[in-house]
């Protein structure tokens, strides 16, 4: 057997995006050593791509904003399927987390009085998104990256070693989480990873593991997500005994590029609409006025005139329907295209050129200008963009305790960021992810540190057995032993086609059923997969290791999509087009049962009576059963 590199840390953080980095900072602040592992280079995680901004009710632009309004918007956006406690913590803590970034060197765009500027975004009542042009994610990840470096400098001063407290393992992918102990004592003991450059294995022993691995979008053909989004964290949580919640809810962002074909799916930030961009069909009609759903009727403008006035006088006018939550806009675009009113390349038009002067567009949306100019030969200061829905974000995720982010059912495992479930309900509002990463990344780091203290005090130090280690290594090397199999790329392409066509933005039972059958046959094909070349930086091998996770998570998405017989947020069933108050009470929980996935219905916790007072009873009535409302009213009186 080859010599295995071995490390011991208090906490292993899997993922170097916003959530992972924030968690690591907090773990160290609480005296714990932490390893940060990521599949790509330091500073390149998905967070870097976020454009529009970070939602936090600082009230810098409109001082009527506060956490209560943000909470309400988040619940509404998620169609009240959110875990109320997460939504509450998120809204309360987001401002502090943003200010903290500023203290670590972030340079947000400013208001006239020198505060952090905030912009409008879909579903947010007031201008709420702290931003830097349209490259907010870059600012956030760079700030956190530089914060880690700053802490390493402090450690160097104190100990002579930059890496005494925090060590970054870039291009080091985790394949397995190890468990130890039996029954009630069963807990996390470490992870196996391999260096992508050398293909050599690394063992980490640690009391706590934090999943911050992001999303699952790479299982769809048209997506804004990169190769990294293979759902590794979701799958590893299942494999270690955890559960996933509400995996049917996927966000199809309404505006991805549709042309040229090679960039299909690449994101066009919602800020384009927040800053005044309008959507039109081939007849030149602002069609969003035709798609305002009943639950939002009194919150959005019904005429173009009122919508236009809102940009300059938001206090006295209702907002344009282009700024409805993403699920609504995505479905509307889908319907327009299906009805034959699409743009030449199968999208609709998004135009900001008529509202803003060229220099303002270039200042506010520099990377969009750049992206269209360089990739599509379109000058957005002069002409409209063509856009259509793209798979963007997964609302479902690892089931966690709302306060501590501890994964349900797996002692020592925590999850934060996109991999976690609950906060966003059935649909996430733009800007609520970056704030999610900060708020719950910090909480995961904090409670993981507390857990490590308790575990160590109880004498439960982590150790991984040689047998477990060997088994995990053998599994990872298995794809090399097959000489005549199929290319992993071919299997991944077929999975992407299947999910896109059959479990996409509009779903029906028969199609989802067909997808599940296809996934089974893909699993069979995966058993006969061939990897060519050696272990050094071999993307074919890396994909072969990601694919089983991708298939497992895709199966969970499809199974949940088949089970939930209603339409809500990021889950639209053609055969069950209505939203159902009965289904609102249900979380769909998935676990591994041997090799198969078991799905159970679990009650969604009912929000506290105190939080319920933030809504009109008539609004709650649109979502909840009379019984639930009565019980809330009873609790207040």
């Amino acid at each position, binding site marked *: 057997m080859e010599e295995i590199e071995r490390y011991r840390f208090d906490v292993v953080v899997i993922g170097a995006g916003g959530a992972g980095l924030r968690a690591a900072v907090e773990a160290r602040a609480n005296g714990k050593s932490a390893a940060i592992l990521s599949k790509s280079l330091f500073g390149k995680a998905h967070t870097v791509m976020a454009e529009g901004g970070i939602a936090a009710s600082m009230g810098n632009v409109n001082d009527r904003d506060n956490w209560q309004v943000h909470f309400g918007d988040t619940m509404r956006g998620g169609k009240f399927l959110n875990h109320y406690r997460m939504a509450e913590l998120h809204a309360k803590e987001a401002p502090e987390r943003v200010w903290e970034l500023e203290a670590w060197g972030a340079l947000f765009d400013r208001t006239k009085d020198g505060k952090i500027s905030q912009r409008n975004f879909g579903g947010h009542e007031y201008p709420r998104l702290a931003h830097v042009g349209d490259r907010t994610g*870059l600012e956030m990840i760079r700030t956190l990256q530089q914060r880690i470096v700053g802490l390493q400098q402090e450690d160097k001063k104190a100990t002579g070693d930059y890496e005494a407290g925090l060590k970054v393992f870039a291009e080091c992918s985790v394949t397995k989480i190890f468990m130890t102990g039996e029954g009630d004592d069963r807990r996390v003991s470490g992870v196996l990873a391999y260096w992508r450059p050398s293909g050599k294995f690394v063992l980490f022993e640690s009391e706590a593991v934090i999943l911050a691995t992001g999303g699952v979008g790479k299982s769809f053909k048209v997506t804004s997500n990169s190769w990294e989004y293979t759902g590794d964290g979701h799958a590893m949580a299942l494999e270690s005994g955890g559960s996933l919640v509400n995996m049917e809810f996927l966000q199809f962002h309404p505006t991805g590029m549709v042309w040229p074909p090679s960039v299909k799916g690449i994101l066009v930030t919602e800020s384009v609409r927040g800053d005044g961009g309008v959507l039109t069909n081939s007849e030149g009609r602002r069609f969003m006025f035709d798609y305002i759903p009943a639950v939002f009727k009194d919150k959005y403008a019904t005429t173009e005139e009122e919508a236009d006035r809102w940009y300059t006088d938001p206090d006295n006018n209702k907002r344009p329907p282009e700024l409805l939550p993403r699920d609504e806009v995505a479905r509307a675009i889908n319907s327009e295209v299906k009805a034959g009113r699409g743009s030449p390349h199968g999208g609709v038009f998004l135009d900001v050129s008529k509202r803003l002067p060229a220099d303002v567009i270039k200042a506010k949306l520099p990377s969009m200008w750049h992206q269209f100019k360089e990739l599509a030969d379109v000058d957005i200061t002069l002409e409209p963009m063509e856009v259509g829905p793209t798979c963007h974000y997964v609302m479902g995720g690892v089931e966690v305790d709302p306060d501590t982010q501890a994964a349900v059912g797996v002692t020592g495992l925590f999850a934060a960021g996109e991999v976690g479930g609950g906060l966003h309900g059935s649909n996430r509002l733009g800007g609520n992810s970056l704030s999610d990463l900060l708020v719950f990344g910090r909480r995961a780091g904090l409670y993981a540190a507390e857990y490590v203290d308790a575990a160590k005090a109880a004498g439960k130090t982590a150790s991984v057995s040689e047998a477990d280690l060997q088994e995990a290594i053998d599994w990872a090397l298995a794809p090399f032993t097959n000489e005549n199999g199929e290319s992993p790329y071919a299997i991944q392409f077929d999975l992407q086609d299947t999910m896109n066509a059959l479990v996409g933005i509009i779903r029906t039972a028969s199609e989802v059923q067909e997808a599940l059958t296809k996934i089974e046959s893909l699993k069979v094909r995966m058993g006969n997969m061939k990897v060519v070349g050696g272990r050094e930086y071999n993307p074919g091998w890396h994909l072969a290791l990601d694919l089983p996770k991708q298939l497992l998570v895709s199966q969970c998405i499809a199974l949940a999509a088949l089970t939930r017989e209603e339409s809500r947020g990021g889950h639209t069933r053609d055969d069950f087009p209505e939203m159902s108050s009965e289904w609102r009470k249900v979380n769909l929980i998935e676990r591994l049962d041997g090799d198969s996935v078991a799905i159970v219905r679990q009650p969604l916790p009912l929000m506290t009576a105190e939080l319920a007072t933030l809504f009109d009873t008539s609004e709650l009535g649109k979502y909840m059963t009379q019984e639930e409302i009565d019980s809330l009213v009873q609790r207040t009186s």
Partner: protein
Amino acid sequence: MGYKAKFKIWRGDNGDGELVDYAVEVNEGEVVLDVLHRVQAEQANDLAIRWNCKAGKCGSCSAEVNGKPRLMCMTRMNTFEETDTITVTPLRAFPVIRDLVTDVSFNYEKAREVPAFSPPVGLKPGEFRMEQDDVQRSQEFRKCIECFLCQNTCHAVRDHEENKQYFAGPRVLMRVAELDMHPLDTLDRKKTAQDDLGLGYCNITKCCTEVCPEHIKITDNALIPLKERVADVKYDPVRWLGSKIGVRKSDNA
């Protein structure tokens, strides 16, 4: 559209390697990275490439296309003739790991030598006040996606391995300039720039600026002003003090 393009792709590791010929289909609107992905999926599953965003935002896909340092995801195929042979090689200034992937750890090590942002002691999160005009200059530098194309291009590194220990390169020096121009940073950064990171090696040829995919004016806006400040500090300490006090005013603006 749709034609077969001729590619020469460098395959190998740090020990040795060679240019390998591939004939590969190209479709309308594609970029070099799309075509290499097709090679990877259909002809060479193990072709090593780095990428993430495919939209010029993450700085992962740096390589040399026909000898020019470029982001592969932002290099359109229609900038070449259909009859051209396109040669793709790894960044020259860094050790090759495999194929088009290089070891860029040099850049991260040098970045660690830049002392972190140091706001005034006692200024609490939430209390920061800065004018847009004052943050604008540093914001330009913070557009950097760390593609390291500038680091790869600067002749002081590209052709002189021996300089690497003394000279941190344009990306890293620009970070120093960024902090130096941050309205609320309190450290004197000139010594770091000059003595620790080798600002003196830069002879303002602007080659770094030319390759920057973010169009940051690295030389004009970061390196030259930094050089001027370094010179000022050396000869005119009183003025330096004045400038720092001037900056401080915005603390309570």
